[in-house]
């Protein structure tokens, strides 16, 4: 124990008390008489007893005078007499063996404690207590009672019942104060800043000032005026399990769980990412973009989640960089705001605060009647040809494009709308060029780019025209990551350059297979059949209703096929076949070209008939011309010089 410390002092005190108690008890037993000194003695009659932890709590009636003067018949509860709660330690209780109706004398130094919300005083430090026996009858009764064990009710105390050390003068604090009690008694900040939901102070225009003055607790009363530069959805993190079923951020309607976010900018040019309510990808994310982008909004009730820097949040800062420098002059902090002082010549931001809703859900109320702010920078739309020519890395770019083909990553455990995918897109700037640049470009969509249900459906059927907002260009590739938004409808405001680029004037043309063709691209080819890979040829029946390729034999009738997706017998299955053919292509004459054919198309139809009729004669197929076939390039190798492709159907 520390010398001179509180513990040591209590120890010494305790030792003194202990000897006094044992001495006193000794005296009681030997004398068996009520000590003559009656001053300060508390006389109580026990009405009820229960136990809490090891303390015995006795609800008692305080008696004015010694009950020896009263006859047992008069010992009725007098409602006028004050009620007390007397606490006894386990040791004292064992010594007393008290029961209801017993009278106890409590000798000083007992202590009285008054509780906040209760009228009943509590008596403690009742070490020096003695039971008083009223008469000879009771003595005998006592001896019999002593043999039978009395059952005392035990109250179990909840662990959730914590102690509040502050004064509770504000009811609002009670609800949320459990985690917020300050430990140093001198700080009164929490009790001082009461909540005044109606009294909002003047609207401020600096995010930084608000953040620095309010600290991490949040700004309830303060409003900051900002411009909404971008609206997007971020995938919800693991931590929000309470909102999801099981451990996956998936909802029962098949949507993906995400969080609506805003990238806002204040009058000083400072940015902040604001995380709002949770959404599902089945919600109409597009409407938030359309209605909110470019408008002014007053931020209130926000809390600081994080302060992040350029090095730690490359994605966020690539978006911020695309909005820098500001289109109108911004204020300079700390200086009087003469118009000469405002500038656009500032270095790009190096840090950004991420804010979140203070508690519960917040519903952003953007006044849609409001004018678009001057500070708003709509996405700059370019043609794909221009984008491919950009020199930088990690540049955000926006463009319109026609999606020709979608290739999903092959993990089947992940649902369709959350897999990474490759979209092959084109626009008129690529289609109309003779040579030098590819006609079709691959856009990679990562799992962190949230796609709305609408967009996902459009991508699986038809050849949709999609607006890619704030995609990332770098290392010769376009990728859609967090904060990229894919839209089907034209945003209201874009720089007009991209207005007509989306219209394609003729049928889509793919690049033809040649020496520059790379893996993971699409191309068209023509050639002559020079061989068939007989070992990999096979056919299988599929359900004519749903296309399920895994049909089973019917348990009742082994001659029939059963589709367990439709839960019905398949009477007219569609036969699908897979075949690899070797072609000689004049456009890439040095290579062996192997094409996996598995759609009911040109070449395939020929071979189907042959195989079906069991007159499989490769000879009859050799030399046949194969017309323009659209393919996906699986791999290109130089030793051996081989290109492996797969026939595809464009959207």
């Amino acid at each position, binding site marked *: 124990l520390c010398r001179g410390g*509180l513990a040591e*002092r209590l120890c010494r005190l305790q030792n003194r008390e202990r000897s006094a108690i044992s001495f006193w008890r000794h005296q009681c037993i030997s004398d068996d008489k009520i000590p003559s000194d009656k001053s300060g003695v508390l006389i109580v009659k026990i009405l009820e007893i229960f136990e809490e932890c090891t303390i015995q709590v006795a609800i008692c009636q305080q008696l004015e005078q010694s009950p020896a003067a009263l006859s047992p018949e008069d010992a009725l509860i007098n409602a006028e007499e004050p009620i007390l709660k007397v*606490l006894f330690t386990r040791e004292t209780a064992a010594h007393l063996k008290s029961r209801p109706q017993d009278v106890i004398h409590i000798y000083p130094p007992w202590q009285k404690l008054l509780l906040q919300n209760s009228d009943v005083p*509590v008596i403690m430090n009742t070490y020096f207590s003695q039971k008083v026996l009223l008469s000879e009858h009771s003595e005998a009764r006592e001896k019999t009672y002593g043999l039978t064990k009395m059952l005392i009710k035990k*109250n179990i105390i909840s662990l*959730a*019942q914590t102690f509040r050390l502050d004064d509770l003068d504000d009811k609002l604090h009670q609800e949320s104060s459990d985690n917020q009690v300050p430990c140093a*008694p001198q700080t009164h900040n929490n009790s001082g800043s009461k909540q005044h939901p109606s009294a909002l102070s003047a609207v401020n225009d600096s995010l930084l000032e608000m953040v620095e003055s309010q600290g991490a607790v949040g700004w309830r009363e303060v409003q900051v005026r900002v411009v909404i530069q971008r609206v997007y959805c971020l995938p919800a993190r693991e931590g929000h399990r309470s909102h999801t079923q099981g451990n996956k951020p998936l909802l029962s309607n098949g949507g993906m769980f995400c969080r609506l976010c805003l990238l806002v900018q204040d009058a000083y040019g400072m940015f902040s990412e604001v995380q709002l309510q949770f959404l599902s990808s089945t919600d109409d994310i597009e409407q938030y973009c359309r209605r909110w982008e470019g408008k002014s909004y007053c931020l209130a009730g926000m809390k600081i*989640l994080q302060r992040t820097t350029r090095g730690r949040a490359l994605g966020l800062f690539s978006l911020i960089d695309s909005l820098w420098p500001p289109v109108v002059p911004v204020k300079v902090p700390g200086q009087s705001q003469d118009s000469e002082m405002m500038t656009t010549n500032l270095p790009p931001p190096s840090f950004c605060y991420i804010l979140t809703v203070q508690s519960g859900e917040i519903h952003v109320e953007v006044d849609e009647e409001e004018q678009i702010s001057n500070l708003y920078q709509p996405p700059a739309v370019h043609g794909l040809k221009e984008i491919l020519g950009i020199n930088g890395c990690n540049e955000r770019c926006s463009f319109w494009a026609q999606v020709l083909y979608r290739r999903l990553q092959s993990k089947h455990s992940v649902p369709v709308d959350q897999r990474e995918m490759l979209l092959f897109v084109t626009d008129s700037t690529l289609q109309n060029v003779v040579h030098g640049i590819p006609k079709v470009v691959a856009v990679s969509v990562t799992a962190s780019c949230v796609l709305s249900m609408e967009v996902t459906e459009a991508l699986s059927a038809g050849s949709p025209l999609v607006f890619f907002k704030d995609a990332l260009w770098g290392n010769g590739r376009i990728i859609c990551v967090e904060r990229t938004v894919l839209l089907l409808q034209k945003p209201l405001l874009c720089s007009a350059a991209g207005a007509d680029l989306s219209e394609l004037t003729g049928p889509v043309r793919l690049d033809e297979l040649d020496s520059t063709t790379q893996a993971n691209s699409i191309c068209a080819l023509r050639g002559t059949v020079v061989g068939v890979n007989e070992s990999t040829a096979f056919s299988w029946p599929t359900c004519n209703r749903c296309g399920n390729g895994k049909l089973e034999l019917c348990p009742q009738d082994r001659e029939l096929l059963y589709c367990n997706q439709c839960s019905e017998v398949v009477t007219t299955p569609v036969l699908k076949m897979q075949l690899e053919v070797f072609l000689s292509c004049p456009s890439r004459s040095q290579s062996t070209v192997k094409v996996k054919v598995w759609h009911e198309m040109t070449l395939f139809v020929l071979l189907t008939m042959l195989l079906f009729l069991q007159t499989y004669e490769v000879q009859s197929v050799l030399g046949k011309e194969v017309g323009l076939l659209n393919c996906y390039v699986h791999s290109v190798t130089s030793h051996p010089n081989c290109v492996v492709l797969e026939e595809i159907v464009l959207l």
Partner: protein
Amino acid sequence: MDGSTLPAVAEELLREIKKAFQETSQGIDIFSSRLKFIFGPSAVPALDLVDQRSVTRLRAPSGRTLYQVLGSSGKLYTCYSSCHFCTCPAFGFSVLQKSESLLCKHILAVYLSRAMGACQELAVSEEQLTNILLAEEEDEG
């Protein structure tokens, strides 16, 4: 009478200690014996922990707090802010299993440190706080 008595008594006691400490920073002696009466054998060890400034309050940017108490054996125990919970074995035994005490000495030390302004303060990241909580789970398991 329904409802419990002991927690209200303990709470009042701690508030009085806090008030007394604010006023005199010495008035603790008056309450020592009361502490002993209510908290029994935990009182002296808890005060000892306070003397040694063993209680630290960890705070994450989200506002979530946690207490860590350096026990006499040198082991660090974690106490929650929102309910009475401590990772020490005595808590599991006396409080949870036997309901013999309201608190263990570590939780009492946390309250006393708060009342007397003897908490050390430490700002941590969300991740660090989570790791501390999860580490405790692993130990139990």
